[in-house]
């Protein structure tokens, strides 16, 4: 009986302690407990993309590494040369790193997965990289023209031997890993001149926060003081989390080479440049004279 009582007491104490502990954790991430009025401020400016980027994978695969390098070299050269022949002033290409991998052929991998006995196969060496094709200054161009130009670039890439669609073996291999996409090309519409747009969004966010805080102060009959802390919750262009893509299984975005903030989308439409802030304002103490009255 004593033991039972002791356990119950411990349990009650534990609940109390845990209750206190949970009270210390802010319900909203980033919110710091303290005096004052804490509000979110959001600013949003829509912008039309000014760049188009197409990531194309060029590769060379062979049993001999020397052959794979020649195949890779020629594949890249033919792509770059074909694009250069277009003579577009705003078109540029950039190679985003070369990778070398070794493994079985797709057919062999299939047999392994399906448990079919087989003799050891020849290892294939693959040299591959992503060539980023960038078309600048498209903001003012009509959408039809932009889409037409992108289509032309993809056509040229295909004519130069870049594989746009996947082989049947590749599709099956992707499906085995739950990837039902049959796309092999990543087209992104980019807003690269983000600095000015973000300034505007910041201004809007600050104004929005102050407006919200003023409303709360008024309703609570207190006087709104100065901002005592500001925290960025979300800022467009700081990460690719803002990128919108219709294709969850698209190839992973290539390494970003630019440190400048940017935002991208898989569709040609205005992209929201959003800034979200968490601002805490002080509450000014009541005027003693006013209080006496």
């Amino acid at each position, binding site marked *: 009986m004593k033991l039972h009582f002791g356990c119950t007491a411990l349990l009650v104490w534990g609940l109390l302690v845990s209750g206190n502990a949970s009270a210390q954790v802010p319900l909203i991430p980033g919110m710091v407990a303290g005096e004052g009025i804490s509000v979110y401020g959001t600013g949003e400016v829509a912008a039309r993309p000014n760049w188009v980027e197409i990531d194309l994978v060029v590769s060379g695969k062979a049993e001999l590494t020397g052959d794979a390098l020649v195949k890779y070299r020629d*594949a890249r050269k033919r792509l770059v040369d074909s694009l250069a022949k277009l003579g577009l002033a705003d078109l540029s290409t950039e190679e985003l790193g070369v990778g070398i991998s070794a493994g079985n052929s797709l057919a062999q991998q299939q047999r392994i997965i399906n448990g079919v006995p087989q003799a050891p196969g020849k290892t294939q060496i693959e040299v591959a990289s992503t060539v980023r094709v960038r078309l600048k200054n498209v903001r003012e161009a009509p959408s039809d023209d932009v889409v037409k130009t992108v289509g032309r670039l993809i056509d040229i890439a*295909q004519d130069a031997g870049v594989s746009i669609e996947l082989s049947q073996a590749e599709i099956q291999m992707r499906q085995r890993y739950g990837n039902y996409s049959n796309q092999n090309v990543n087209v992104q519409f980019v807003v690269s001149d983000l600095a000015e747009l973000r300034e505007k969004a910041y201004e809007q966010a600050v104004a929005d926060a102050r407006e919200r805080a003023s409303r709360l102060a008024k309703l609570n009959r207190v006087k709104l003081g100065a901002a005592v802390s500001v925290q960025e919750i979300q800022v467009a262009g700081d990460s690719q989390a803002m990128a919108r893509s219709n294709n969850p299984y698209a190839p992973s975005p290539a390494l970003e080479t630019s440190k400048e903030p940017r935002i991208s989308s898989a569709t040609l439409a205005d992209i929201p440049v959003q800034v979200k802030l968490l601002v805490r304002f002080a509450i000014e103490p009541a005027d003693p004279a006013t209080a006496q009255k």
Partner: protein
Amino acid sequence: MLAVAQSRNRRLALRGRIRRLSIGLVAWSCLLIFAPSAGAQPAVGIQFPATPASSGKPNSAFTLPTQSANVKDALDEFQRMVKHEQWDKAFEALAAISEKKTEGFIDRGDGVLVPSGLLVRGLLAELPSAGKSAYRLFYDAEAARLWANAVGKAELENLSAIVANHAISSVGDRAADRLGDLYFERGDFEQAAGTWQSILTYCPDSKIPKSQTLVKLAMALARGGRWTEFREIEQMVGERYAGEEVEIGGRRVTAGEQITELASSAAGPDASAPSALPDDFDLPKQNEPLWRFRFTGTDGATDQGNPFQLADIYGRPRPNDFVIPAAADERRVYVNVFGVEMAFDLETGKLVWRSGKLHLLNLQQARQGAAPERYTMNVYGDRTWSVGRDPQQASQQGPFTLTVRDAASGKEIFSSRRSLSSWSILGAPYLIEVPVTREAPSAGSISPSAPRKNAPQVGDVAYVGAQRNRQGRELSLLVLNAADGKLLKTVNIGSYAVDQNQIYNGRVARPTLVLNQDRLYVDTHAGAVAMIDPQDGNIDWAVLYESPAPPTGYYYEYVPPPCDVSGPLVVGGLIFSKGMSSSRLFGIAGDGPKVAWNRPVAESAVLVGADDERIYLGGEELTAYSLKTQELVWATRLPRSADWSVPLVTKNRLYQFTSRGVCAVDKARGDIVGIFRGDDLDSLGGSMFVARGKLVTVSNMGITAYSLDEPPREARSP
């Protein structure tokens, strides 16, 4: 107790870790110590070897007749006795081999199968001096007797016996010299070269001047078109024996002059020379075709992407990448669609004749394992030569037959269905021109001179691969009279590892042939190339190459890799072979034979053509390899094409019909110099022909003809 055991385990584990760490430290130290020497190598720009080191006997899916175990035992016995210098017993073992008249081959150990006699000669040549002296003591009398009696009708036989069995005897070199003369006089340059080469190989102490043997060998090589080997002899003579006098045909000449004279004849006709290739042509400028015949209906009832609705072994629609065999001449285009042959007028596109009713195709197409790649279509002069199944028969194991028709009317001239009903044809027929005209060939009088490219003449013969019905593993060559299809000879090549009638999820290996001078080369496309004497049907030698057997276990998700048969190709005296499922490009020099190329290439690659500098391969990508260095010069990946979309080769271009049109590629650099989209963009490409100022493309969607604005020069000339 448990705690003690755990403690012991922990100690052991700790010791293991320490040991591994120590080994790691030692290895790391070694790395550090040796790193400077490694660092002396250039960090970049390292040259990669074009051909990896040979790994011994290849994994082949084809078997040729091999010698009995007794012969192999006798060889082992010989080698054992030689080690112990027991010469009498060693030579007894050799005698046992020589007495056996078997037709099998012995693996030389490097994948080359040679007759036992050739191997014995090699073994004798490698004997130490004491062994050679002992051999002469035992066999000189016999060799001398043969030599003395080598006159008249017995001359060839006796000399052959000396060269085959007593090459290292005191008369071996003279016998080989005379035998080479005999072969050369008969026009058998291959045998002549081999016999003279045997003097250099097996008789290093010969009193016959080496310069004379070299010049004779060079003559045989030159007449045999083996220019790569000729160049080696030319260089050797030029460096060492240029001023020496030799006796050739009863006259005294200097070795250097004779070689120079032979070298000047190298500009003769060579199938691989650029001059023998057709002229380049400009791609059409208008996408609008002159005419088009669609295999699929225009009412939308048939799937545009899969007009023939083939089923795989599980009954699912099969990917529409099968072959539409096609051929063209100056008047018509011919196709063989699952046994229904059709001819179209080249000018108008009108159907001239057909061999069957098109609705019968449904029966064939619905079959599992229809093997569309086994159908073929060729045209030689005024006859079409096709291989296919009777569209009306329903057996899944039904035989394939060879049918020859009048190209103008489609009237059947002969068919193996009637005369060779016990055989199922495998692969396309290969016609050979025989110089003895106006006489019907007989089994003993086949003396081919060149591949037939135009109308067959009286006396021509046709070689075609075949299997006896329900004997899907065997491969034979049928030698037919090209005029009436009568069987002249059957040559047994060997056996496939897998029954070719049981391949439902991949492509069937069909033999391909090429004639080079007086020898016929057969690529089985399952791991073996054989050289055959077309006169007597004997296999001189065979070379095995890497070619894994097709998978016999099927599973639902299996996607067969793309592949197709091609070659063999004769370039610069080498026989190039690329097996259908092999990842090796093989170049074989007839002398030896010797494997000169054994180079990794893509499994899907097919031989396309060659010129003086490069050999070109197609498949999933176009590639060019240097004939001198074996290095990959360039690679060009074109838009996706059907597996059977083999490029056309001209003097300076490669043209390929792809899913995005016809691409023209520069042969020197691999650059795409033009793309003609055309009107057949629904297909994956296919075959193409240029005839009478027209470009004709054949895909599995239809046949399309375009006008060439700038026809090739030869077509424009009157």
